[in-house]
């Protein structure tokens, strides 16, 4: 099946076509022609004046299958991811059963759809118990792209060091969420100007800094590859920056929610904004945006956490942390970053960098390359509502909101998926 993009604006820093407008012909899943002049052929699918980048890859997506199919099935996850522009998801291991052996690693991959590939992140410890190391090597041969204890499960410094040391043997990637585990379970939101008005227990940013310091020190000691997943504060960011000066294979991600919202959004006890890590102050949000611009932060993540309705339909302190986010990531960033960052500055945090950090070959917009593409239009508007939401869960603060910026189509593995 043929597809032509006419006068498409290309965002791919690794391509000579980066920041150029061109016509692109895709035939049978291969980019056959990229041309400054108009391509004469006609195709079944043609899009004009759109933007195109390598297909987006989300790191740290929370899935539902196996074990939590009432929140998200493999099918609904792939559908919401595709509509959000993602052709790849690196899936967190905290499912039931936990992804902690090669059989479950294979199972996760087998759930991939035609348009979205599921990359398993394997559990760093058996059953996420924080005690026994898992079979990293075997799982990596089966397709695990990183090892993590997830967001909710604590791990000791000794165990983390053991994991960093062990993974080094085959350049495996350790992914660690820099949060104090006591705080995850005992706090309700960021400790700042807002929690004090609401009488809610706050999580101080100093704890994030301490964990970033500790974890990067261990990675430096071990000389191992590390991704700090979901940095949320300026203090944490500063600690990461100084560690990064000493070690090049340290990486960091940020949730897009922390680039578009702050603790002020919780002023009316809006439990849909109760997430982990907590939304920080406006000053933190600005520092995180600056860090995307200067390249300190490598990856923007959806921090997609599907939850059943009942988990949010309670009084604030009883509700669970998390919000879905795959479909709203692009339009919300498109507006929130408009005045501070160009698309060329942040789209690679979705398209090129996640592949680089996971040690995978990134999709490339060059002739003869396999087409793994996300096609989007920053000006098109749509509404996020029950009809357009393709996730099985609806724990999002954005229901009923008009969105500016839409993913038009994705192409992956010879499959063209067009969003209506």
């Amino acid at each position, binding site marked *: 099946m043929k597809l032509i993009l006419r006068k498409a604006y290309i965002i791919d820093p690794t391509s000579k076509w980066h920041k150029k407008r061109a016509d692109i012909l895709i035939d049978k899943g291969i980019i056959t022609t990229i041309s400054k002049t108009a391509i004469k052929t006609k195709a079944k699918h043609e899009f004009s004046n759109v933007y195109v980048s390598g297909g987006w890859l989300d790191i740290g997506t929370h899935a539902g299958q196996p074990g939590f199919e009432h929140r998200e099935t493999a099918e609904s996850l792939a559908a919401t991811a595709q509509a959000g522009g993602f052709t790849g998801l690196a899936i967190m291991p905290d499912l039931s059963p936990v992804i902690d052996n090669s059989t479950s690693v294979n199972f996760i991959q087998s759930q991939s759809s035609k348009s979205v590939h599921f990359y398993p992140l394997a559990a760093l410890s058996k059953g996420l118990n924080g005690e026994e190391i898992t079979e990293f090597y075997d799982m990596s041969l089966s397709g695990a792209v990183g090892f993590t204890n997830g967001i909710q499960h604590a791990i000791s410094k000794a165990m983390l060091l053991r994991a960093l040391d062990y993974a080094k043997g085959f350049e495996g990637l350790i992914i660690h969420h820099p949060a104090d585990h006591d705080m995850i379970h*005992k706090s*309700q939101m960021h*400790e*700042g*100007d807002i*929690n*004090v*008005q*609401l*009488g*809610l*227990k*706050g999580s*101080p940013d100093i704890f994030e800094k301490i964990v970033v310091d500790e974890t990067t020190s261990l990675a430096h000691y071990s000389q191992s590859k590390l991704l700090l997943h979901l940095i949320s504060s300026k203090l944490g960011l500063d600690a990461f920056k100084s560690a990064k000066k000493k070690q090049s294979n340290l990486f960091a991600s940020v949730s897009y929610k922390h680039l578009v919202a702050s603790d002020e959004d919780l002023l*009316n*006890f809006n*439990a849909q904004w109760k997430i982990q890590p907590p939304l920080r102050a406006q000053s933190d949000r600005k520092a995180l945006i600056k860090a995307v611009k200067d390249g300190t932060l490598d990856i923007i993540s959806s921090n997609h956490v599907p939850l059943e309705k*009942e988990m949010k*339909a*309670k*009084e*604030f*302190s*009883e509700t669970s942390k998390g919000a879905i986010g795959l479909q709203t990531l692009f339009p919300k960033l498109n507006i929130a970053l408009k005045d501070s960052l160009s698309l060329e500055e942040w789209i690679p945090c979705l398209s090129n960098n996640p592949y680089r950090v996971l040690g995978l070959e990134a999709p490339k917009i060059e002739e003869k390359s396999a087409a793994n593409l996300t096609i989007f239009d920053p000006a098109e508007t749509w509404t996020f509502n029950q009809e357009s939401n393709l996730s099985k869960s609806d724990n999002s603060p954005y229901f009923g909101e008009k969105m500016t910026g839409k993913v038009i189509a994705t192409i992956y593995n010879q499959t063209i998926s067009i969003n209506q």
Partner: protein
Amino acid sequence: MSPSTEGFLSTKHLLGIKYLTKDDLDLIFRTTKEFKQVINRPIKKVPSLRDITIANLFFENSTRTKLSFELAEKRLSADVINFSAASSSVKKGETLLDTVNNILSMKVDMVVMRHPSPGAHFFLSKHIDANIINAGDGTHEHPTQALLDAFSMMEKVGDLQGKKIVIVGDIMHSRVALSNIFCLKKLGAQVKVCGPPTLIPKNIQKLGIEVEYNIDKALAWCDIANVLRIQLERQDIKFIPSLREYALYFGINNERLNRLNKEIVIMHPGPINRGVEITSDVADSDHSIILQQVENGVAVRMAVLYLLANKRGLKH
């Protein structure tokens, strides 16, 4: 007989002092004054809320607040139903929303609720139509306590503009402190909080107040000291080594008050831990307006119920 005061609150619910305007506060205090006269007459009852049903939902223990609300409701001739979590289906796992909806399907017009979870009233206000009055939500607000505190202060010292008020004790776990701060700031008072640093939330200065860790300096500075109860039941870990040490460090006693070369007003929202945050001789002294606070509590709650019913077009 209803008060002559007329006017409407800017809000349908009383979720917290933070959400009231200065005009709302003035209206509540004018109405309170009139109800205070009413309850000091031989016939204390008025028909203002006749045929209105009020549910008192207490998901957390309460003695004086619950009694005070119930008395206020009965003096306004409302029909009253009471619910407490200890004898309810909450213990069987029912959600707050289900519990409240079940009660509301019995055609209840107003809900007075105490709940251990901050913001529980916000959550409810998005789902039910009845007027909601917050009788305390965890460590967030206790608006009627702040209203009765401010009313009692004004009775004693007049306009609070520029008056110096210190709130002493466990600020972190106190909904009274937060509501008092919002209320007193709106009334133009200068506010300090004083207590062990572990019991004072970080960033509380951002509410436009000052923090003082030295109780003697705080007492020397203030016109009024509102002394809070140590909320041991809301502390999941130990923030102070012992009550004995707290009494030594921050307890208000006559020795401390005698060192001041002025008289200050002492308040306490109750229940008092005698000998901990305040000694009996201070609590029972002429400085203390603790019992006036209790009396004003009924009048303030009558005012709030009356004005919210008024706003809704419920009252007769």
